[in-house]
């Protein structure tokens, strides 16, 4: 059974360690993630007390920040910041993909757009999980990473649009039927709930807490990952880089220790807040 072939042990990995680091995310992408998760935590922290306004902790949380007026203000503030970040990201994509004619934005191995390989990967990955086949070799973005991306992308459009529809209800009512305002709250709160449950459980585990990355995948903070991690997590991309002779171009520098420490503090805080909100949500939901 080739799929059960032993991978190198930790000591062997260490022996093989090249000490080389490769770039995965650009500075802009890391900033985008930072803005995204901090505003998302803000939106979740202020949105949940509204969604579950009958529960005890909602009262406490509302009181702590100065009542529901303050909560709503903070919610709108985070929404605005996130909207701007989202628009910048979309503009960046179109600039790179259409104006600069950069390859691999809308299709190909490096694109976020799903392809046939992703469908096969889902199937094979799950076969591997239950011991029925070899582990698929992933490219630059694995299918669950693409799903995360598109879930957030779709979520921001849906939650954002319904949110603004409620914020500027009389304006939106000029071209939306009245029941759409009712639907806006249902959509906003359900999609928000989905985002919160998904990010704070699935994304946290898939990206950070699973054994391969435990306790946290630092690449989104530092932008670089070790050669071993690169090869282990995305063997197909690694192989392609070597094949195309581009591996050296991706060489980055090891992150400074203080930066990693700082990033860990921020990251663990975010995960802690997220898990707390997850517990609160679940208690309110199954009350």
């Amino acid at each position: 059974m080739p799929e059960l072939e032993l991978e190198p042990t930790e000591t062997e990995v260490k022996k093989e360690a090249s000490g080389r680091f490769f770039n995965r995310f650009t500075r802009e992408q890391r900033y985008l993630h930072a803005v995204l998760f901090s505003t998302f935590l803000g939106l979740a922290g202020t949105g949940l007390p509204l969604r579950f306004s009958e529960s005890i902790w909602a009262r406490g949380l509302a009181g702590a920040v100065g009542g529901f007026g303050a909560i709503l203000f903070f919610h709108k503030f985070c929404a605005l910041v996130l909207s701007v970040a989202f628009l910048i990201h979309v503009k960046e994509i179109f600039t790179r993909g259409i104006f600069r004619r950069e390859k691999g934005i809308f299709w190909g191995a490096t694109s976020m757009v799903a392809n046939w390989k992703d469908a096969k990967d889902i199937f094979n990955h799950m076969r591997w999980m239950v011991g029925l086949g070899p582990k698929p070799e992933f490219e630059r973005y694995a299918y669950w990473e693409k799903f995360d991306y598109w879930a957030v992308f779709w979520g921001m459009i849906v939650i954002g649009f319904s949110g603004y529809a409620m914020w500027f209800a009389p304006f939106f009512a000029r071209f939306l039927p009245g029941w759409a305002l009712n639907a806006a709250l249902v959509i906003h709160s359900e999609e928000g709930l989905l985002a919160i449950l998904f990010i704070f459980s699935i994304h946290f585990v898939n990206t950070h807490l699973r054994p391969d990355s435990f306790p946290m995948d630092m690449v989104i903070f530092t932008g670089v990952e070790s050669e071993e991690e690169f090869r282990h997590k995305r063997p197909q991309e690694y192989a392609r880089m070597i094949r195309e002779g581009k591996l050296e171009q991706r060489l980055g520098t090891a992150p400074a220790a203080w930066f990693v420490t700082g990033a860990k503090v921020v990251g663990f805080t975010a995960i802690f807040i997220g898990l707390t909100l997850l517990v609160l949500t679940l208690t309110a939901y199954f009350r």
Partner: protein
Amino acid sequence: MTKAARFVAFFVAIVAGPADWLSTLLRFTRLQRASVISLFALVVFLAPHRLAAQTDCLACHGDKTMQDAAGHSISVDGDKFSASIHGSLQCNNCHADIKQYPHPDHVAKVDCKSCHADEASKLTSSVHSSSKEHPCTSCHGNAHEIFPKTDARSAVYPLNVPKTCGQCHSDGAMASKKGLPSVYPHYMDSIHGFALSKEGLLVAANCQSCHGSHGILSHKDPASPTYKSNIPKTCGTCHAKINDDYQAGAHGHAVASGNLKAPVCTDCHTAHAILQPTESEFRTQSTPICGSCHKDKLSTYRDTFHSQLGSLGGYVETARCWDCHGAHEIYPASDPRSPVSKANLVKTCGRCHTGANLSFVQYQPHANAHDRKLNPALFYVRLFMNLLLASVLTFFVIHTILWLIRSRFDQVRRKSANGGKDA
């Protein structure tokens, strides 16, 4: 006795002293003399004797330390008594069984009824009928220091009434021992209590404005001003316009037609702890009150942003029931006078939502996303969102759990390969 003796000597001096007084008197006819003398005698007899009756008693009872055999004070403050409303009476007008001195050790209890028959008869049929538990003095204060109710010294002066009633109707006091609610602290914190205690507003409602004074009846008694169907009229004695509005509205009609489930003033405003309706506390406490009857409306309201934003107090501006439906003059939505009738919606919603138009007011503040017939579009939107949420989470929870198990399995295998030290 010395006072009386001095009085007699004084009169003798006035009458007998000057010679011309006497000679004038001597020149009178018998009849004239007799009438003048009897007139004097009358004055001499009456004037000092009335005072003498109080003074006689006060000679003993003026002693502040005087007590009866049981140790109760039986002293009377003569100055206060003479200033009181009963100051012109003689002691035995009330203590009628005392004819002479010395009087028996045991004297009868004074019966106020002998003069105040009306009040006494009202009291007998009231909740305070037991004269043993509720003697007149329990409200009117010390029997020898009773002032008219218009006098600020009176225990039943409007500004003093709550405190007087509060002696019993307060925390841990007599009434609460008998299982009656403590109302005094609620009243004092109410808008009426504030007007009375802070502003000294004499017209502010005090206890007896609503409950009456001598003829207080239980609120269960249909004749009581606090009986449910009488409450609008009782409050209306001051709040006349609001009573008119209320009587014209749906609740007023219902109560007038004998439906005692419909709310009256106190159902929303409470009886004693009445708050200023613009206060956040009132705004948050009243929605559930409407909802105690209009259950389906409350539950659908709870699903809306109005409720979510406003349910915890800090944000009081969001629409509550009466912001849209009106407070006192509530009409059904089909009535053109109702603020939620079709023709008035743009104006009503526009009070908060500047720029509200005909499309905007199609918004349903009581939509039910679980009712396919009533709100089909909303029903399917919710269904889609629920299915999306359930399917995404179900798939990924299974996916993630399997992945975790498999990854951990591999990890342990890798580590156990190293002599099991890292497992």
